[in-house]
């Protein structure tokens, strides 16, 4: 059984702190893969002023745990951390962190990428962009659905 840590928060996170919490005192971990997602200043060629993330609180935690457990079933991972923010964010702000630790690099990379692909389509978060032209909801991408489906 992997150690799983899930957090849905409007606070920022510190990648190094989360890594330390996971690896401290451990010598069975050979590989740690992290993914950090940031708000970019451009999306679909429009400059972004702000990004607001709406979420379904109870379900968000449930789904993140669900995704982590799916990853754990498929790959030999010893530890998983998923942190997802909500609320108002600005360009260069951190949005999401996924950590996957394993004895070997292959499992850590695969589990990390698998969880990110699921998050894009199955985690109940919705992004609204604020640009010079006003506000609009970010459309889900068929590309994200294809990315997710390659795991099934």
């Amino acid at each position, binding site marked *: 059984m992997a150690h799983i840590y899930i957090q849905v928060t409007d606070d920022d996170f510190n990648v190094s702190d989360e890594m330390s919490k996971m690896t401290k005192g451990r010598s069975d971990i050979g590989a740690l893969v992290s993914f950090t997602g940031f708000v970019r200043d451009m999306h679909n060629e429009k400059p972004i002023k702000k990004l607001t993330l709406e979420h379904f609180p109870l379900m968000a935690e449930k789904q993140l745990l669900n995704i982590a457990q799916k990853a754990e079933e498929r790959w030999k991972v010893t530890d998983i951390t998923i942190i997802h923010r909500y609320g108002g964010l600005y360009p260069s702000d951190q949005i*999401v962190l996924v950590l996957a630790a394993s004895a070997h690099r292959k499992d850590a990379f695969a589990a990390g990428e698998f969880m990110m692909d699921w998050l894009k389509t199955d985690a109940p978060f919705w992004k609204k962009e604020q640009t010079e032209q006003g506000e609009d909801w970010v459309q889900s991408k068929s590309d994200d659905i294809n990315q997710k489906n390659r795991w099934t």
Partner: protein
Amino acid sequence: MQLIYFARIREIIGVSEEERPLNEQIKTIGDLLDFLSLQDEKYSCAFQDLNAIRIAVNQNYVSFDHKITDQDEIAIFPPMTGG
């Protein structure tokens, strides 16, 4: 049953949640969406493109043929854009 809306759907309907009684016309999620669409233009507008609607009953994803009970919490929202 408890209805909850998110994101674009919430904005069109104008409330984030509402309580509705189950009635004999409503057996499945599909029936519920049809029933609401006939009640008010807001709903028919929000549910116009069923490809862009996702449903969770008691926080689990379900399809449109899922059977509902009066105790269910039914969340209706657009495709997620997390990560």
